[in-house]
């Protein structure tokens, strides 16, 4: 969950942006009031069929979600202030007893650009979502990888998966390529999630978020050193390279990080006390 923005335009901070680059998602409380959420649920329940891309024509109140100032601040930060909303949107109605999806990236076989933020998904939940009614599952950091759904089909729970339990009115904002799945609905009610897509229109020339150049060293250190959790170690170099490239692409600068890191932050991780041996034979640096 991101911290409350300190500025009036609800732009993300450098720290928020690095979190997004590393994890590929963020959770946002839109503070949409309960009456509006409840009204949207009522209207969704009254739909005789799935309106597909026309869901916002069927329920104009949904436009209030993506026109929310906090949502606009986040989207502007990640895609640039001239971002656009895609004409595709989709209402997922998961009835009681529905099963889990397999892990997948949206978009099928489309070309992917894991070092960019070109498209975002926004998942809006008009009702609270907990473990019982079909929360969305995510694999943090997986937006930097190419999934083959035929291979991931046999993979069940990931040890480091995130289950997005959110109160009503919250949205998930996701890198388009993140691996995700809707999970089983064990409750007695429909679980709704309305998905919107947003597109970057122009290449970035400068940071579109609440950026402070004085943070660049901390940004670099986080991008380089934040652990690769839940993936095999052999992907580390690839992931760190893509994180760096993503930061540079959305910053509109090709050398922001490289010039800053130079050799100044090298540290010799092997120096210091000799390691000791644990009872099961592992070497541990004290």
């Amino acid at each position: 969950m991101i911290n409350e923005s300190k500025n009036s335009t609800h732009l993300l901070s450098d720290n928020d942006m690095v979190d997004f680059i590393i994890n590929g998602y963020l959770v946002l409380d839109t503070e949409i009031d309960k009456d509006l959420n409840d009204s949207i649920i009522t209207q969704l329940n009254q739909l005789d069929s799935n309106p597909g891309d026309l869901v916002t024509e069927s329920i104009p109140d949904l436009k209030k979600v993506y026109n929310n100032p906090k949502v606009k601040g986040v989207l502007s930060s990640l895609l640039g202030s001239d971002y656009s909303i895609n004409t595709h949107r989709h209402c997922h109605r998961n009835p009681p007893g529905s099963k889990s999806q397999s892990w997948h990236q949206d978009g099928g076989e489309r070309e992917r650009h894991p070092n960019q933020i070109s498209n975002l998904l926004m998942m809006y939940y008009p009702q609270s979502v907990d473990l019982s009614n079909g929360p969305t599952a995510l694999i943090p950091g997986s937006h930097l990888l190419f999934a083959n759904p035929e291979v991931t089909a046999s993979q069940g729970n990931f040890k480091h998966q995130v289950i997005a339990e959110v109160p009503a009115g919250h949205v998930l904002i996701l890198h388009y390529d993140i691996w995700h799945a809707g999970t089983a609905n064990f409750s007695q009610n429909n679980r709704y999630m309305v998905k919107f897509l947003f597109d970057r229109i122009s290449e970035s020339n400068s940071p579109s978020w609440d950026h402070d150049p004085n943070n660049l060293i901390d940004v670099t250190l986080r991008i380089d050193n934040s652990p690769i959790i839940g993936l095999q170690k052999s992907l580390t170099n690839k992931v760190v390279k893509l994180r760096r490239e993503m930061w540079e692409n959305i910053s509109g600068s090709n050398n922001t990080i490289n010039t800053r890191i130079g050799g100044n932050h090298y540290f010799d991780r092997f120096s210091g006390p000799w390691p000791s041996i644990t009872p099961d034979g592992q070497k541990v640096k004290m």
Partner: protein
Amino acid sequence: MTTKQRLLYISSETTHPASPVLSMAIYEPTLGSITQIDPKNSIPIYESVHEAQIDGWRVIHFPDQKTAESFDVIGYQFILEKLEEFND
């Protein structure tokens, strides 16, 4: 009673059987059995392939040493089996 094959798919951090589990799924040989992401119970029952072996599972597929270059795979996949008696 019928002897049937239970399957356990484990993706590990390395090809070493003692390396940490990244993902796990059990496929039961019973009609209507469903294997799916379970948000209520996402902690793996074994921490490693080795722990599963100790519990009686046999490895029947070892992970490929080279992954496809066109896509990424999270973890090195072992497939294990356990033969057990089932009431039909």
